[in-house]
């Protein structure tokens, strides 16, 4: 017990310290790197709280994918404007006040938690067998809170539309401007040839195992997206034009299948997003696989950024 205490306290202190260094970092690049470290430390904290599903998501999304997006933003800001703009004192004070207010509200919410926390966890564990799943997190995501999960995936699509709408008119249907290297780098090419076979297997495995063990569509999809981005960055494969039919189909197949299964529930079971008794797992796994494809496509395209004008070659 006590041997864990020092480790846990160390992780908590590190999370706070890295969080502070993210805020106080002078350069946006340093802040982005600190944020990635912050995500990885949070993942360790989630493991210690026995929330392996959350830890995997935090490492993949919070550390990896968000870090990639932030680094992309840093690179773009650097070329766009000098970094010596200082905000006025009133704005600084207002920002500090709002942040302190949010922190105070969060602290109050934590301190005012009831003695016995109202929980639905025992009910979930009791009825988990009906879904045919072994992982209670997947059961909650796809059975009890399926509407949340569906809308969450639609929000991802909206986010991508937001990025794409940054493209100028003449760049529509262009190719995302993800370009880090001007010419192929042999080391990177080597990695992009060696790693994707492993990564694709890991991604599909994470999605498949999500029904019974920690894992799932989001974690698996993120790994697949990372592999695709690696191949694009190493210039082994061009990023697709955003007008490609297969890309658009891939982006919407997950939410579309989810919606179709949900509507089928009206006929086959007793309501929207309900699964027919005895066949719940088959439907859920189908939805998870379709979602994995969509999540991989959306995340990769989010990281690739808005399209640019198609160059004549």
């Amino acid at each position: 017990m006590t041997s864990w205490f020092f480790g846990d306290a160390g992780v908590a202190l590190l999370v706070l310290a890295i969080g502070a260094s993210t805020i106080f970092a002078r350069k946006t690049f340093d802040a982005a790197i600190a944020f990635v470290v912050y995500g990885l430390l949070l993942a360790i904290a989630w493991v210690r709280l026995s929330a392996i599903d959350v830890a995997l998501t935090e490492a993949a999304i919070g550390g990896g994918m968000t870090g990639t997006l932030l680094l992309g933003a840093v690179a773009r800001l650097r070329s766009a404007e000098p970094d010596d703009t200082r905000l006025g004192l009133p704005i600084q004070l207002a920002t500090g006040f709002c942040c302190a207010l949010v922190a105070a509200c969060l602290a109050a919410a934590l301190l005012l938690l009831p003695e016995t926390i109202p929980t639905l966890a025992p009910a979930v564990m009791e009825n988990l067998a009906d879904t045919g799943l072994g992982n209670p997190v997947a059961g909650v995501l796809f059975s009890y809170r399926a509407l949340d999960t569906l809308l969450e995936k639609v929000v991802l699509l909206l986010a991508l539309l937001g990025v794409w709408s940054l493209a100028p008119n003449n760049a529509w249907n262009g190719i995302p401007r993800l370009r880090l290297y001007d010419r192929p780098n042999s080391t990177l090419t080597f990695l992009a040839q060696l790693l994707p076979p492993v990564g694709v297997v890991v991604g599909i495995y994470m999605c498949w195992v999500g029904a019974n063990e920690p894992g799932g569509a989001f974690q698996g999809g993120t790994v697949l997206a990372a592999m695709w981005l690696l191949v694009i960055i190493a210039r082994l494969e061009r990023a697709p034009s955003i007008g490609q039919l297969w890309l658009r189909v891939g982006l919407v197949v997950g939410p579309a299948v989810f919606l179709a299964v949900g509507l089928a529930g009206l006929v086959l079971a007793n309501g929207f997003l309900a699964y027919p008794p005895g066949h719940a797992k088959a439907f859920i796994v189908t939805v998870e696989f379709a979602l994995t494809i969509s999540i991989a496509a959306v995340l990769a395209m989010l990281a690739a950024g808005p399209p640019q004008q198609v160059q004549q070659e």
Partner: protein
Amino acid sequence: MEFALDLFTVFTLLAGALFFLAGTVGLIRFPDPLTRLHALTKVDNLGLGLVVVGLVPQADGWVAALKLVIVWLLVQLSGAIVTQLIAGAIRERGPSA
């Protein structure tokens, strides 16, 4: 036998931790980027390697042990590649970077 394996684990974990410590000190104290990278690779290779070797006897079955070894190999691969990429970027920009 059990005791001997536990002793082995304790010894290799401590040795691995020593490499982590040495690598971290090198990362902070070494004067230029290339030597700092050099310090970092020792942590990847030997530090994590010793930790994995120490954890293999404690693993839950041979599949778990294999997973640990694969994790080490993947970290080796990414570590070596990233080090190469950073070193390449440093050489392109010149030693002052």
